Every structure is written in structure tokens, then in C-alpha cells.
């Protein structure tokens, strides 16, 4: 057999696999879009603005909690600065859509219609925001994840504060394209993101469709990751770093990857948050309070459990919407809730397992009892 025909044979063996993977990705993508359309048009038409608002908030929170779970749940590291990455994504995406809207449409008003030039720019800005956050994740993760011990907690906490201070130093927002074009270099560097006053009038593109779509993508990604060989290796790091290394896992490399995945989705979540009706971004968005909420959702759901983190995100969002008039007391209740979980269910709602594994187990036990 000539080497060429052997290569052909290999190609023939590989191609159907690749073809299947591509088909699989296509089908999954279409399913995500279909689900998002369903949520947007069917569910969206059945609920009022109050419930819609809660659904949007819950969706963003799901993305944040499920992504933080990759670091804190899968690899067993302890990041407590997720809001910092969220803020990076939020400001980057909002900067893109706001100034491009001024340039292209002469107004910061969002274009109407589910699919428009403006909403596609928004979707792209969410991805860019995610990539910017992932880049920040690489910068933060690489030095701190090399070291043993809980350096990550300290560094991520510091990172959130640094982002907050940097955002405070940003230039005042510019309110028209003429003004922006006439701006001097000094007004553009650091970028005009509103400083301590906050960044306002961000076009409101965040709708049930986009939130549902990005939630679906995030969930699919995380479930696939957990079941993949790479995801299993992340779990093995959490279980026993030395044994994981003995299995040939490059633990630093994988921890940094996990951290970058998490930061990416945090950035996307931030972009969705930024473009919601009524949002004015503030430097304090990068601060500890928001990070703490996300952390609670992950711990409440059970470190490592994707469905647990998602469910806890929804529960916390609904609870905090109902307790809105409690103001700062909410944080006290959160802290209390965290303590109670630690006492009564130290592994969180589902532990590492997924909801159906837990309930499936109960079901089987009951069946046996009968």
C-alpha cells in the first residue's frame, strides 16, 4: 500500500467523525436558537414586565454562577472576584455599542426589531467583551494559579478593586458623535466610560432572546466540558492535585484554561447586564458585593454542579427581587443563608452531582423500597 492511499484511508476514517461533530454543533446551535426564540416570543408574551425583568436578571445570574462554577466547582480553586471580569465585559461591550450607535445611527437608542444591525453589533460586542474578560483572566490567572495555596482568592479580590479604581479614572462620557469626533486625545485616553459618574444611556438590546441564547450556549458548553476528558481532568485537580499530575494532567495549564473559560462567560454576562433597560454601569459593579452574590449561588448549588448553580442563581434572583425593599439587609440575609447551608448541607443543594442524578438516585431508592 502506498503512503498516499494510507493517508486517504485515514482521512476517510477521520472525516465522518469531523462531519458528525460539525453536524452535532449545527444541531445544538439551532436548538439553542429555537429555545431562545421560544422563550422570547411564547414565554415573553405570557408574562408582564416585572416577571420579564426577573427572567433577564436570572438569566444573567445563571451565566455568572455557572461560569464561576468552572473555577470554584470543577478545578476546586477559589475565585472571589468574578464581578471584576463581569465588569470588564460590561464596560467593553457597552463602550462598543454606545459609541458605534452614536457613529452609525446618530443616537444611543437601540434599533427596534429582534435582528437589526444594532443588535448584531450588540451580539458581537458581547463576544468581544467576553474575550476581553478572558484576556484579563489569563493575566490574573497565570501568575496566581502557578502557586499552590489560596493566592487566587487574594489576587481575584484585588483584581476587582483594581478594575473598580481604573474605571473611576476613566474620562467623562461623551454624549454625541460630534462631541466624540472633536474630542482631544486627553479626553479619549483613558477611554470616556463615565468615570465615577457611571456609564449611562447604553442602548437597551438585552432581551429575553439574547439572554436565553447565551444562557443556553453557556449551559451546553459547561455540560459538555464536564463530561469531556478535559473536564474530568479539571475535577481530578479538585480531588487531588498530586494524583492528577501523576495521571499526566498539566495542572497549571488546565487551571488557567478553566479560569479563562469562566472569565469569558462572566464577560458575556456583563455585556448582557450592561444592555438591560435601566442599567447605568458603575465602577462599583466590579466590587466585592456582586462577586459575593455569584459566589453564594455557586456554593448554594453545590460546588461542581451546573444545574445546582443555575437553580440557585434563579432562586437568589427571585428572592432578591422580592426582598428589594430590604436594601442593604439583603447582604445580611445572604450571609445568613450561606452559614445555614454550610451547617445543614455543606455540599450545597446537589454536591458535585447534577439535579437528575440526585433525584434519579432518590427515585431508584424509592423504587427499591417498594
Amino acid at each position: 500500500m502506498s503512503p498516499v492511499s494510507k493517508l486517504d484511508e485515514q482521512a476517510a476514517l477521520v472525516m465522518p467523525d469531523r462531519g458528525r461533530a460539525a453536524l452535532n454543533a449545527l444541531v445544538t446551535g439551532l436548538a439553542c436558537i429555537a429555545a431562545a426564540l421560544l422563550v422570547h416570543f411564547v414565554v415573553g408574551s405570557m408574562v408582564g414586565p416585572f416577571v420579564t425583568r426577573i427572567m433577564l436578571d436570572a438569566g444573567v445570574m445563571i451565566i455568572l454562577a455557572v461560569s464561576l462554577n468552572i473555577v470554584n466547582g470543577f478545578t476546586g480553586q477559589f475565585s472571589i472576584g468574578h464581578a471584576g471580569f463581569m465588569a470588564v465585559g460590561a464596560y467593553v461591550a457597552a463602550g462598543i455599542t454606545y459609541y458605534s450607535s452614536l457613529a452609525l445611527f446618530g443616537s444611543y437608542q437601540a434599533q427596534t426589531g429582534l435582528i437589526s444591525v444594532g443588535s448584531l453589533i450588540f451580539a458581537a460586542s458581547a463576544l468581544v467583551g467576553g474575550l476581553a474578560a478572558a484576556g484579563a483572566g489569563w493575566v490574573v490567572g497565570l501568575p496566581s494559579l502557578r502557586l499552590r495555596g489560596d493566592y487566587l482568592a487574594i489576587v481575584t479580590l484585588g483584581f476587582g478593586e483594581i478594575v473598580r479604581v481604573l474605571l473611576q479614572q476613566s474620562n467623562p462620557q461623551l454624549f454625541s458623535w460630534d462631541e466624540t469626533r472633536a474630542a482631544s486625545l486627553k479626553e479619549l485616553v483613558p477611554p470616556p466610560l463615565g468615570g465615577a459618574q457611571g456609564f449611562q444611556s447604553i442602548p437597551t438590546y438585552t432581551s429575553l432572546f439574547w439572554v436565553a441564547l447565551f444562557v443556553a450556549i453557556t449551559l451546553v458548553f459547561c455540560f459538555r466540558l464536564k463530561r469531556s476528558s478535559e473536564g474530568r481532568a479539571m475535577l481530578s485537580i479538585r480531588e487531588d492535585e498530586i494524583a492528577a499530575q501523576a495521571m499526566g494532567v498539566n495542572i497549571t495549564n488546565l487551571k488557567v484554561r478553566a479560569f479563562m473559560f469562566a472569565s469569558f462567560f462572566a464577560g458575556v454576562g456583563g455585556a448582557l447586564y450592561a444592555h438591560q433597560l435601566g442599567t447605568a454601569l458603575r465602577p462599583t459593579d466590579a466590587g466585592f458585593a456582586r462577586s459575593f452574590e455569584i459566589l453564594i449561588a455557586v456554593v448554594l448549588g453545590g460546588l461542581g454542579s451546573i444545574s445546582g448553580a443555575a437553580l440557585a442563581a434563579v432562586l437568589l434572583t427571585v428572592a432578591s427581587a422580592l426582598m428589594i425593599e430590604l436594601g442593604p439587609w439583603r447582604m445580611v440575609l445572604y450571609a445568613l443563608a450561606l452559614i445555614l447551608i454550610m451547617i445543614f448541607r455543606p455540599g450545597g443543594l446537589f454536591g458535585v452531582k447534577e439535579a437528575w442524578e440526585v433525584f434519579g438516585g432518590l427515585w431508584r431508592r424509592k423504587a427499591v423500597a417498594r
Partner: protein
Amino acid sequence: MLDVSNLKVSYGAVQALHGVSLRVEKGQIVTLIGSNGAGKTTTLRAISGLLKCSADRVAFEGRELRGMPPHEIVRLGVAQAPEGRGIFANLSVNENLEMGAFIRNDVDRVRQDKKEVFELFPRLKERLAQNAGTLSGGEQQMLAIARALLTRPRLLLLDEPSLGLAPQIVQTIFKVIREINQAGTTILLVEQNAHMALKVAHRAYVLEVGRVAMEGDAKELAKSDQVRKAYLGGH
């Protein structure tokens, strides 16, 4: 196959190994015995790259291992079943075994190797879906060895596989160690159970406070007065 010369390791200011030299020939079982704190685990970890060390030479099949990260050393064919087993407690038995095959992508061979591993340890097959943390101590040890075998090592480093196990299980484990060796895997076996270790091994090293105190043919050493007094409870 493995050639270690003048290996030194320190934990901070405390030096744990003061120049250990040992050789493992291909196809053999070599055992490293010694009392608690003698430096056996330290030696294994230095070889597998988990600890920083200084040495004149740590060569595996002629390649220098010093400075290589542990995940690359595994890929060269040196696997370790760590002390205290190091199984992934919250993963299932099957997932633990899959982790053993982490560095491989020859799916069919892995499936075949799993079958062989189940022949060595039939109990694991019955408990595939069980969380590894809920296995008995003996089963966990079997899993740790099985998992290391799935990396397809040419040299297997075992750290106290008999630790804390009932005599009957210890017999089983040692039987399997011999079988693994007969199937062609070279083994460096760290043990406190000097009696059993010297029985299965071809060669032996006795480690005392970070130094090789004695070395030689395992059967000869088992007969020597010094070893019998210190490690075999003889008179």
C-alpha cells in the same frame, strides 16, 4: 532502565535525602524498604517530578528526568500510584480509570487494557458506577494500581500498596504486583512490609534516614542478620 545517582532533596532547611543512588533493571521488581520517615516517599516523588531535587543523574531509559514536570514524565512511561492512594473520591470508579487513560488517545487499546485490568481486579468491574470514595481501603488500593496501569507505564512506582490492608488483601495485592511484573512492567516498590516486599522483589534497597544503608539481591538481604533484626522482626 532507571538510574538514580546521588539524589538529594530538602524540605526547607531539613534535608530528607542525603545522596541516594539506585538502579532498576528492566523487567525486575526492585523494592525500597525502610522505616517511617526514611525518605521512601520522597525518593519516589523526586523521580516522578513532584518534588524538586538535586542529583548527579535521574535517568529513565537514558533520558534525564530532572527539571521535567510530572505530567511529561508520565508520558515517558513512568507511572505512580501515590502514597495514600490518591484516588479521586468524588469521581466514579470508571471515571478514575478514565483518568488513568488521560494521556492516551488510542481508544480501542484503552478498552482492551481496561478488560485486562478487570481480570486483575474483578471487584472493580462490579463497582464501576460507585463513587471511588465509598470503596473499601483495599478496593481503593486496587483502583489506584489499576489507574496507574492504564497509563501503560514501562516503569510503575508503587508507594506502600499494602498500607492499612488486611493480610488477605495484602496477599492479593502482592500476587497482582507479581502478575503485572510478569506481564512485562518494571516495578519500583516502596514498602514497610519488608517481609512481603523482599519475597516478590528481585533486588532491594534499604533506606535509613535519607541514605541507602544496604542493597543487593532481595533473597540474600532477607537472610542477612541486620535486615532480619530491623525489618523482619527476627532474632
